[in-house]
């Protein structure tokens, strides 16, 4: 297909190939050229052979063909006369020049000069060939990033978002504080009462029957206390990993929360025929080989598991009430432990303080988390009364999947109970939200003003997807954001929403960065012009959903890259285009770039450190 003049300008440095047959003597115009975006595909299928002598679009425009060329022929020097020289093309397309340069990443160590009085604010929404000159003294006080485009050469792509005028009163404002008190448990055993004695947690034996009876669809439930010695035991698919926490004072999101260290609740189950609850792949197998220890949403090595194994009625695993019943039954056990934790009069081993600040004068950033909402086990319970509880929470499917705003502290205080039974490698469990790395890092970052965390569900039907996405757009518009990060778990038709959210945010002129598992198996099939800054959450060697719990979820290393990329986009930097096929080295070069500039990123291990499970040996990674 031929291209427009606008596309020709944008791709002035891409190869010039004819889209149709043209006679000698024709003047080369954009509507004679093939779309550069599909040239790699054409080359792959053998329809086009691109040599080094192929000229660029910028060079051939305005020239004249001296020979008749067939369709899909690269235009070379010997068939054109009246070529524009390199210098002229450069002068005509300053935008392109800017794109070509490899930018050094912005150095973020500098303390910003926001408190500097007398700073001039310049806001240019859309400019062209702007030439500004400032006396050195004023330029120095800008505190601009080290290698941002120099002040007297501004590209047409980016707004010069210089720091707004900020007086001394622009201090961080504390909005709310959450304190987490940690209590160490070293032993868990079944007993006559649910109580904590010293570092031993005792669970009432009769509680199990009560939990089974509480839910019609639950036919049976077993509890296994798994200590590190039992990690080589077999387990059914893990449906959720939950911290055991309770409110000591205040509401969820503020006040004081008590949490047990060293013990997690692990919900597992099948239906009575033995079919795993969960659809895409399951993480059943030997625990030690199917869990990526230490990920935010996974158990840590050394944790004791209170593993509930729930059996639900046959064939209800794909129906909405099924997985919900399994979670509610497990929660009955956890709730009694919460009461015991509340009543415990022992000492906490440690305290963590989480303060939510608003930082006026700094770049206002919103985190948007897309969660599953197609129904059945693709659901989450939002804002229970107790951290990661079920009572008082509302499923986001019942809320119509419309965006719901949570404060950052509400997220990390167990505001989300995840039912999601999607692929284990990219599933965000309840524990993931309890330790959400992106929220934690954004909260601490003094250079940005994190205004909230917006959860948006992903409905099944396209029309509903766009309905929800447009509401997200309106919220973004009303917030006057400087930047946004959109994350999603899993892959599938939720990528359609993912793309739409980027469009809603981007079309309002807000810089946006996206985070998703992609690589090979989850390669984005939809995209738009606003999806130019993306972080791939994949960590598996082969780029696939390899059924190892939490392997491909958002981790601190991804959070650091996402925030760094957002800051780069907000400062007007250009992000290099992604490669066509998944290349794990792109992530590594980004990490190197950040490490070179003082932002140390600790790279996490992937499934290669785990002993190979049968599935991996025989299915995914045959030797």
């Amino acid at each position: 297909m031929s291209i427009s003049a606008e596309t020709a300008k944008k791709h002035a440095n891409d190869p010039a190939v004819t889209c149709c047959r043209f006679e000698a003597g024709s003047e080369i115009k954009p509507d004679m050229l093939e779309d550069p975006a599909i040239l790699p595909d054409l080359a792959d299928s053998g329809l086009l052979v691109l040599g080094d002598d192929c000229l660029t679009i910028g060079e051939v425009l305005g020239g004249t063909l001296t020979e008749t060329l067939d369709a899909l022929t690269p235009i070379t020097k010997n068939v054109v006369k009246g070529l524009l020289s390199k210098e002229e093309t450069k002068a005509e397309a300053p935008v392109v020049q800017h794109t070509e340069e490899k930018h050094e990443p912005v150095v973020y160590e500098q303390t910003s000069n926001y408190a500097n009085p007398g700073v001039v604010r310049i806001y240019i929404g859309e400019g062209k060939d702007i030439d500004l000159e400032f006396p050195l003294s004023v330029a120095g006080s800008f505190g601009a990033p080290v290698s941002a485009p120099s002040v007297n050469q501004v590209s047409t792509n980016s707004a010069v978002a210089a720091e707004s005028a900020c007086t001394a009163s622009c201090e961080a404002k504390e909005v709310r504080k959450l304190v987490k008190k940690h209590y160490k448990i070293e032993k868990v055993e079944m007993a006559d009462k649910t109580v904590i004695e010293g570092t031993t947690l005792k669970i009432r034996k009769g509680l199990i029957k009560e939990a089974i009876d509480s839910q019609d669809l639950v036919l049976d439930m077993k509890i296994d206390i798994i200590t590190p010695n039992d990690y080589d035991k077999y387990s059914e698919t893990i449906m959720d990993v939950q911290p055991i926490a309770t409110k000591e004072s205040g509401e969820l999101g503020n006040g004081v929360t008590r949490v047990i260290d060293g013990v997690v609740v692990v919900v597992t189950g099948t239906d009575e025929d033995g079919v795993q609850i969960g659809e895409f792949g399951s993480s059943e197998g030997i625990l030690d080989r199917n869990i990526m220890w230490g990920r935010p949403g996974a158990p840590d090595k050394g944790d004791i598991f209170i593993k509930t194994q729930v059996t639900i009625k046959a064939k209800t695993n794909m129906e909405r009430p099924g997985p919900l019943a399994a979670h509610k039954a497990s929660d009955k056990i956890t709730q009694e432990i919460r009461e015991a934790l509340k009543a415990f009069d022992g000492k906490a081993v440690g305290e963590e303080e989480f303060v939510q600040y608003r930082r006026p004068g700094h770049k206002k950033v919103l985190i948007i988390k897309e969660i599953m909402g197609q129904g059945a086990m693709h659901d989450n319970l939002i804002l229970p009364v107790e951290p990661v509880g079920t009572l008082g929470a509302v499923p986001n499917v019942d809320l119509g999947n419309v965006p719901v705003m949570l404060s950052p502290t509400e997220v990390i205080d167990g505001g989300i109970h995840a039912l999601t039974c999607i692929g284990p490698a990219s599933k965000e469990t309840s524990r993931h939200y309890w330790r959400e790395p992106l929220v934690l890092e954004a909260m601490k970052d003094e250079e940005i003003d994190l205004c909230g965390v917006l959860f948006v569900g992903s409905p099944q039907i396209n029309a509903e997807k766009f309905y929800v996405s447009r509401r997200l757009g309106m919220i973004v518009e009303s917030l006057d954001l400087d930047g946004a990060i959109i994350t999603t778990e899993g892959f599938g038709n939720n990528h359609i929403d993912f793309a739409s959210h980027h469009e809603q945010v981007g079309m309002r002129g807000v810089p946006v960065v996206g985070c998703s598992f992609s690589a090979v198996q989850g390669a984005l099939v939809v995209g738009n012009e606003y999806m130019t800054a993306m972080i791939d959450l994949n960590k598996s060697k082969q780029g696939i959903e390899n059924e190892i719990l939490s392997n491909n979820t958002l981790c601190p290393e991804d959070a650091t890259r996402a925030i760094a990329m957002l800051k780069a986009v907000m400062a007007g930097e250009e992000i290099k285009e992604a490669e066509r096929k998944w290349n794990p080295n792109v992530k590594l070069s980004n990490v190197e770039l950040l490490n070179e500039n003082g932002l140390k990123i600790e790279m996490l291990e992937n499934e290669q450190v785990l002993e190979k499970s049968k599935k991996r040996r025989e299915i995914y990674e045959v030797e």
Partner: protein
Amino acid sequence: MALEDLKYKDNLMYMQGFITKVKDGGVEIDFKGRLGSMSIPLRMLISDYKPEVGQTIGFVMSHPEIESNLIDETYRKVMNKEE
């Protein structure tokens, strides 16, 4: 099986079928021409309308390829239990 090991991944067949069952979490689809059936979660289905029994679907797929003779005992055990 790694993507690169598939020998016929570029040979895509156009498949047509219709929805035979709708569950909360997925749909069951029967292919036309007695070419088989499949059950997929909602996440894997693209739709403008609420899925309903009788609606037709279309997609392209490559031929499934058996990778090797190795049998996974866990799956075999679970399948035998169902019978």
